[in-house]
């Protein structure tokens, strides 16, 4: 690889968050280089289900960001189509809707409380009776005590979306370098960023964006501005392609609670959805571990059992494979988006837990808004870097 030229901004991490930040910055006229130690979209971005959800957030800043991002995605995809053409911009975008399903008497109250709060925050929610739910999803269990339908929940293919964002960056003159590890930050005498070090070389720039996902905590520590971002492991079971089996994202009503929980121990909650290819994806599990990527059969068993609880017919469907990944977890379960006051020119965009695909569009937009001094798309305060839960002592 030849020497990398200079840029205004070096984005570290070519997952969907890094790609979305790079795209949004380049749209604002900023010269951007994206570097990744591996291949683009090869880690967390490739390990999820492509959810763009408003249904799984409790009211608050996370939901505001989710609503802004859900609004932004289709507009962004139109912009990408215009710039790079319909073929590269095809990302399997589908507004499929979500169903939160309660199967016990105890789950009815919490689901009603959650949806009431979401409705008050402007999320469209429709309560369905069991018959109507089974009209929408004929294979759904008969053990239904309550169902809420979220028509705005959507899905896309995250690797394709990342590739489209990076193609747009390239179309605007930006660069992407795979297999390049940033191992330090060059600063001037005042402590401000002037370059991203890659071994003996440095890429001159006036800002870097830490978009390292679950590795953002580790990276931030190596450059002396630590933030508390930890890996939270998840696993997914994949069936062979099925004839139309589940149309929406269907999940157990306990899912939101599992997402929001701060527990380090294993939490599982059934989530079932299909992809454009016809495979059914079965999640979800959450456990805080180190970067241990063993497949845990006991967890897979929990996932299968949960999915059969929602769709009994899955009991006879063979599983084709299983995969796992790491979500970037923060102690207060909010993303970190903004400039680090400890090191002018260092920006972070990470900590989206399992919602990074959905939140990417607004995250990129917000970071670019803050970088260029525009009116921010949402209130950036809750996501600021120097909140006590996030900024660790160097």
């Amino acid at each position, binding site marked *: 690889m030849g020497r990398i030229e200079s840029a205004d901004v070096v984005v570290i991490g070519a997952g969907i968050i890094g790609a979305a930040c790079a795209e949004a910055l380049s749209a604002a006229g900023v010269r951007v280089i994206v570097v990744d130690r591996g291949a683009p979209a090869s880690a967390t971005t490739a390990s999820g289900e492509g959810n763009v959800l408003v249904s799984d957030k409790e009211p608050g800043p996370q939901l505001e960001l989710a609503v802004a991002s859900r609004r932004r995605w289709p507009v962004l995809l139109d912009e990408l189509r215009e710039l790079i053409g319909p073929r590269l911009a095809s990302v399997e975008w589908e507004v499929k809707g979500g169903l939160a399903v309660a199967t016990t008497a105890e789950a009815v109250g919490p689901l009603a409380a959650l949806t009431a709060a979401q409705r008050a925050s402007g999320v469209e929610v429709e309560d369905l009776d069991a018959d109507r739910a089974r009209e929408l999803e004929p294979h759904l269990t008969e053990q239904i005590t309550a169902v809420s339908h979220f028509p705005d929940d959507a899905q896309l293919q995250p690797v394709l979306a990342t590739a489209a964002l990076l193609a747009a960056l390239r179309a605007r003159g930006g660069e992407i370098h795979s297999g390049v590890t940033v191992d330090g930050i060059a600063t001037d005498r005042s402590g401000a960023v002037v370059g991203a070090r890659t071994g003996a070389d440095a890429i001159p720039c006036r800002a870097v964006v830490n978009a390292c996902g679950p590795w953002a905590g580790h990276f931030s520590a190596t450059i002396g501005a630590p933030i508390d971002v930890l890996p939270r492991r998840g696993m997914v079971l994949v069936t*062979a*392609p*099925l*004839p139309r089996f589940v149309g929406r994202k269907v999940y157990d009503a306990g899912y939101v609670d599992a997402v929001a929980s701060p527990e380090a121990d294993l939490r599982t909650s059934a989530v079932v959805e299909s992809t454009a290819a*016809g495979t059914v994806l079965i999640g979800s599990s959450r456990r805080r571990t180190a970067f241990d990527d063993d497949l845990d059969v006991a967890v897979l068993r929990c996932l299968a059992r949960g999915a059969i609880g929602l769709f009994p017919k899955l009991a*006879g469907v*063979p599983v084709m494979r299983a995969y796992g990944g790491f979500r970037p977890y923060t102690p207060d379960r909010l993303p970190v988006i903004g400039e680090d006051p400890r090191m002018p020119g260092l920006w972070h965009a990470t900590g989206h837990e399992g919602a990074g695909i959905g939140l990417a569009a607004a995250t990129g937009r917000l970071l670019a808004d803050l970088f260029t001094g525009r009116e921010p798309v949402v209130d950036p305060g809750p996501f600021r870097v120097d909140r006590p839960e996030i900024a660790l002592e160097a």
Partner: protein
Amino acid sequence: MRVRVDGAEHVAERGQTVAAVLLAAGRGSWRTTRIGGRPRGLFCGIGVCFDCLVVVNGVPDVRACQRVVADGDDIRSQDGAELPS
């Protein structure tokens, strides 16, 4: 051993895979693709590619190259993606 392949009786050797039985019966393909309806049969032969899927005793998506036949197996061609019967 006796098995059925799409309704017809065939003799199988103990230890043969379903794919071996199908090949011995002169079959090159036993599945169609979901969208294009194109023929598929044995490809990798080692359980990785999921191309040789077939229905055995009502269970779809069985890898013919991995499944060892049992006496009386009912082997049926798979039409695209199928749900278990």
